[in-house]
């Protein structure tokens, strides 16, 4: 109450320094803090180290804009709106992006471990795959495993001595400097309420040293505290808050708006090349702020994405097109 956690979009992005280890809320093309992603691109942030449970369109935006040096995750694409991450693929081919591959469950375990304050997690997934191929330890090959900001090992293989369960793989905690979340509601003191699936947001918020929450709405803290079992992240885990309506577009938000599939299809179709990406960014990102971006999107487009508040989703039969 005494500490005012409100900041502006610009301030939020100033907290994220060149070279920060960064992660986000959401799942593939859902509930991504796109307004912050756009502002990072506008402010020409460089050398970011993204560590994500999974990637998505937002990853493609940041990688395409050249903001990212290292990406640790398991997946990137636009779901059915674009088959793969063409910007990531291009930068990998050009060797201007280091990709460290884990499996999806392993990435989740890594964040869960960090959120629990332990240095690693134990798992039995993906044994025998090239995900565990010691030749493919890309951060190791790049000489970046300092044991401080980046774990000394990509994996450690061991055996279970308690129950004889067999081979185990230990994965290092995902240590991140900053998590940026996009959620439905945040109270003035930082309490977060997410509607629908909360993905890996609670783990991500707790794992990060600094957590910034961007919300569709800032609501009275007291309102959220009337039903504390519905809240997902406690006040003291959140350092900064800001309100940014429609700030997840073109990703979708349960109960609020659908993924803008046409927008993502257009992004995917036009950003296979760097020239294509630069043209896209010139049109949609640079020279804009969040309001002028919404103006450019226009009412018709956004009303079409609106979720039915009784159903919490956008039934296809009510939509034009698609």
């Amino acid at each position: 109450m005494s500490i005012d956690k409100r900041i502006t979009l610009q301030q939020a992005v100033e907290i994220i320094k060149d070279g920060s280890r960064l992660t986000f809320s959401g799942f593939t093309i859902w509930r991504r803090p796109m307004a912050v992603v756009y502002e990072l691109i506008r402010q020409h942030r460089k050398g970011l180290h993204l560590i994500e449970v999974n990637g998505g369109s937002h990853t493609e935006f940041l990688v395409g804009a050249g903001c990212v040096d290292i990406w640790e995750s398991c997946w990137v694409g636009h779901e059915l709106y674009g088959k793969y991450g063409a910007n990531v693929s291009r930068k990998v081919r050009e060797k201007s992006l280091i990709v460290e591959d884990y499996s999806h469950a392993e990435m989740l375990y890594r964040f869960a471990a960090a959120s629990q304050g332990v240095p690693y997690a134990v798992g039995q997934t993906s044994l025998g795959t090239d995900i565990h191929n010691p030749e493919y330890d890309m951060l190791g090959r790049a000489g970046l495993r300092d044991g401080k900001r980046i774990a000394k090992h990509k994996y450690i293989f061991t055996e279970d001595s308690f129950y004889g369960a067999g081979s185990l793989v230990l994965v290092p905690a995902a240590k991140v400097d900053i998590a940026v979340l996009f959620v439905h509601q945040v109270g003035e003191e930082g309490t977060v309420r997410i509607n629908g699936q909360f993905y890996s947001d609670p783990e991500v918020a707790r794992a990060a040293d600094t957590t910034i929450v961007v919300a569709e709405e800032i609501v009275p803290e007291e309102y959220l505290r009337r039903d504390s079992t519905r809240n997902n992240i406690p006040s003291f885990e959140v350092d900064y808050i800001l309100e940014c309506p429609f700030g997840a577009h073109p990703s979708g938000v349960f109960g609020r708006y659908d993924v803008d599939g046409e927008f993502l299809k257009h992004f995917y179709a036009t950003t296979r090349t760097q020239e294509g990406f630069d043209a896209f960014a010139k049109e949609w990102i640079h020279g804009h702020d969040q309001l002028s971006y919404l103006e450019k999107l226009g009412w018709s487009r956004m009303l079409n994405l609106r979720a039915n508040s009784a159903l919490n989703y956008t039934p296809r039969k009510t939509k034009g097109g698609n």
Partner: protein
Amino acid sequence: MSKHALPGEYSLPDLLCCAASREVRDNEVVFAGTGLPMVAILLAQRTHAPNLKLIFEAGTLDGRPPELPTSVGASCCEIGASRSSGLNDAFSIAQRGYVDLGYLGGAEVDQYGNVNTTCIGDYLHSELRLTGSGGNPDINSFASRTVFIMLHEKRRFVNNVSYITSPGWRVKKWPGGEFVHRRDLYGSAFRGGPSAVISTVGVFRFDEETGCMFLDTCHPGKTPEEIKDLCQFDLDISRVKGETEVPTLEELRIIHEVLDPEEIFIPKIKKHAHA
């Protein structure tokens, strides 16, 4: 039971979807990915497996989506679910051993059922990076059975996949990388492995002891020899049971009128199209 469709009344995606749907048994816990697998599972839920329990990776447990979700993170996933939460729940449940069946896809597969969804060509000098693993290896590691649905081309049914993303019946033991039976590596976490590959030409299964793929059924109009020619490895065609069962009219009605009327994942057959 509904009549089977005649040639020309169904498309290849229809056939794949129905074949995949038949892999589910009632009351099973099924871990579903986006796309054609999702249609197959919802089809099973509306036909022979009304009590299957559907898990979406993003955190929906025992879901009954009112319409076909366009992704596992989509808003309609959790409508009617037993519990909606997050990935920690979904993967804990999987690793704990609750999952009977997983549905997956892939770009390349080898004779042991090792699947690649990560890159084409040398990983260290990648020409084309694909989406990456996602939950493919996790679902495949933990489920008792997994079904892969794949486009069949000779460059996809290969001797060695570019990158083993998802473990088959014989996998690499690190640090050496020699192939061993999956059972020997997974210890108490061993619960099974790939149980079927449904490709655009046939249905393949695995000898669980040798770990090798064999041809189970040919899609209508395909011969075992043709199919063998479409694999780089020496496909066992000695155990072919016959032809893949074709869709019934009722299944086609559910796919095209109930589940995917907008043709998001499965196009409707055009009057002039062939099966």
